[in-house]
């Protein structure tokens, strides 16, 4: 037990160093620790770091402005943790953060990690706001600690399914997912909506979130001659998939969710990205109320925005506003204030329903034209 505690201390110190907050604090400031969890190693690292940077930007701004809670000056400290996009690692780092005494967690990035971690945060009674977990199951567990600032997969999958059949004229549809909570959840919601709109699902294939070879499943799909392939998953798989579709002579269109709708997808798929359609919850960054301004501030510090940084940023503000209303950073008092959240975030208004889902659920569809994502339309 003794050595265990020591480990946590060492890990905590390391986290401090990694977060660049190892400096001596001026005396008098009360330190309030907030966790941020996303994959910082593995294939989704670029998106994970993006989330952490989004949260860090908000924390730095709030610290620069100065925050007072209960009459004391408070300094926020962001503890960044890596869950490797692995459900089992997610629970380990979640426990580590709880032991480190965080008052809230911004994260995790993936649904597959947010869901198992949510039980730990719930048991510890600390609020969790995920910037990007979209699986319906995440807020459907009855936990009063689980919140998200992004439209969920039911909203997104429904928009995608209707768009595929209604606007893209798909009749025979093949569905591939990466078997993660996000990919599978989105694909299931898409399937329901596409079927309801009159499309026929001719193939349902699977891959995983570390694969690069899809030739076998795409060949098998080709035999069923679909006119549209839906992929529930992320860009590291979607990119090569688009390439392999072309090289196998598949003429079906590729459609995906927010996992594909980023710069990296276009880089990886190259010219084969042309014409691919993907959705993203919320508004395009330049149509967001605070989008262009956020982009300027973010890019000055961290470079190009991948996808979810604005949501991580808004999640921090939603949390801090709740702290201000509670006039305390105590988790129980913050939790009591979170349902009353009503702020104007970068991504749009942030309000929660009884389950912890966001109520402003717009979904925007994009298409790659001339090597960049262009807005097709926004569905409410």
């Amino acid at each position, binding site marked *: 037990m003794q050595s265990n505690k020591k480990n946590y201390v060492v890990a905590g110190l390391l986290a401090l160093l990694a977060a660049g907050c190892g400096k001596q604090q001026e005396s008098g400031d009360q330190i309030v620790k907030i966790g941020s969890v996303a994959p910082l190693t593995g294939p989704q*690292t670029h998106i994970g770091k993006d989330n952490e940077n989004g949260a860090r930007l908000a924390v730095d701004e709030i610290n620069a402005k100065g925050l007072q809670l209960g009459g004391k000056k408070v300094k926020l400290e962001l503890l960044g943790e890596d869950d490797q996009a692995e459900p089992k690692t997610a629970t380990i780092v979640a426990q580590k953060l709880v032991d480190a005494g965080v008052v809230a967690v911004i994260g995790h990035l993936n649904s597959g990690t947010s869901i198992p971690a949510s039980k730990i945060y719930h048991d510890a009674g600390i609020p969790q706001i995920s910037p990007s977990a979209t699986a319906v199951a995440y807020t459907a567990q009855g936990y009063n600690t689980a919140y998200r600032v992004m439209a969920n997969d039911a909203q997104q999958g429904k928009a995608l399914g209707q768009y595929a059949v209604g606007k893209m004229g798909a009749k025979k549809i093949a569905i591939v997912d990466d078997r993660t909570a996000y990919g599978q959840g989105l694909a299931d919601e898409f399937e329901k909506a596409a079927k309801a709109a009159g499309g026929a699902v001719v193939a349902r294939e699977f891959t995983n979130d570390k694969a690069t070879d899809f030739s*076998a499943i795409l060949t098998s799909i080709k035999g069923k001659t679909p006119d549209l392939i839906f992929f529930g998953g992320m860009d590291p798989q979607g990119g090569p998939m688009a390439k392999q579709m072309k090289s*196998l002579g598949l003429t079906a269109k590729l459609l995906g969710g927010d996992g594909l709708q980023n710069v990296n997808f276009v880089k990886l798929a190259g010219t084969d990205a042309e014409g691919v359609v993907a959705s993203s919850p919320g508004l395009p960054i330049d149509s967001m109320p605070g989008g262009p301004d956020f982009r300027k501030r973010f890019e000055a510090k961290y470079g190009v925005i991948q996808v979810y940084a604005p949501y991580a940023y808004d999640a921090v503000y939603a949390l801090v506003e709740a702290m201000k209303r509670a006039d305390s950073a105590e988790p129980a008092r913050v939790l009591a204030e979170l349902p009353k959240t009503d702020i104007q975030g970068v991504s749009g208004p942030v309000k929660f329903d009884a389950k912890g889902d966001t109520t402003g659920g717009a979904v925007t569809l994009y298409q790659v034209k001339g090597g960049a994502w262009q807005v097709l339309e926004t569905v409410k």
Partner: protein
Amino acid sequence: MDIFTQQLVNGLVLGSIYALVALGYTMVYGILELINFAHGEVTMIGAMVALSVIGVLAGVAPDLPGVLVVLGGILVAIPACMLLAFGIEKIAYRPLRKAPRLAPLITAIGVSIILQNLAMLIWGRQYVSFPEILPTTKFEFLGAHISLLQIAIVVLALTIMAGLWLLVEKTRLGRAMRATAQSREVAELMGVNVDRVISATFIIGAAIAVIAGVMVSAYYGLAHYYMGFMLGLKAFSAAVLGGIGNIAGAMLGGLLLGVIEALGAGYIGDITGGFLGSHYQDVFAFFVLIGVLVFRPSGLLGERVANRA
């Protein structure tokens, strides 16, 4: 029928790459009885170095034909990885040559983790995309789409395998390698410079790995610091399937594994009526590994290892 041909082509291309990486595992095992788990990472570093050079070349001389640019990348990456493999052997394995066999195995895993993290620091966490400079000519053959790149991969892989076979069977170095594999002590007594032979084995394996790494990144259009891990495991399974320590076995095992994976993933859903789906693609390699270990531990062509044991 055309679907079947296509799956066969998919499998052969994948298998050629597995076979090339498997050669590196099997050569080292044949001589040192060491499973060099860092080999997958050497493949990855090869791809990354080549890709960096390709990026620079394509930027500096945009008119250069893509094939030459890629060749330039390979020509820089090969010596770099040869040096790397030489260094790994010298620093991580040679001091442990007399230690129990588990010790170098663990250092191998350590080296693999170090290389992965080093690559992450150097090239970042993002997927690096392979510039689209190679011709994308396609052919139709019995209803299957075959690209020029796929043909090049298979032909090049077969050429390298044939070259390696000639090297091992017909040259002085090859004879020294075979002698060292049979008995290190006796070979040493006969005047073979065993240290040099072992270094040569690592260096040759690394050169082949670089080519395999570039093939993977050109074929899938990307490279990543993580790519060596799964590739290494699959290639290792291929080497065991063919009979680890046996060079012809690695080639056969690689090709077979590629085809098994492609056909397995392509047909498992239809055969089991959707009960098992294509998400079991990666499982085939390891089923094969377990199956071989249980029923034929010496692998398909691996009598020599059995004799020695």
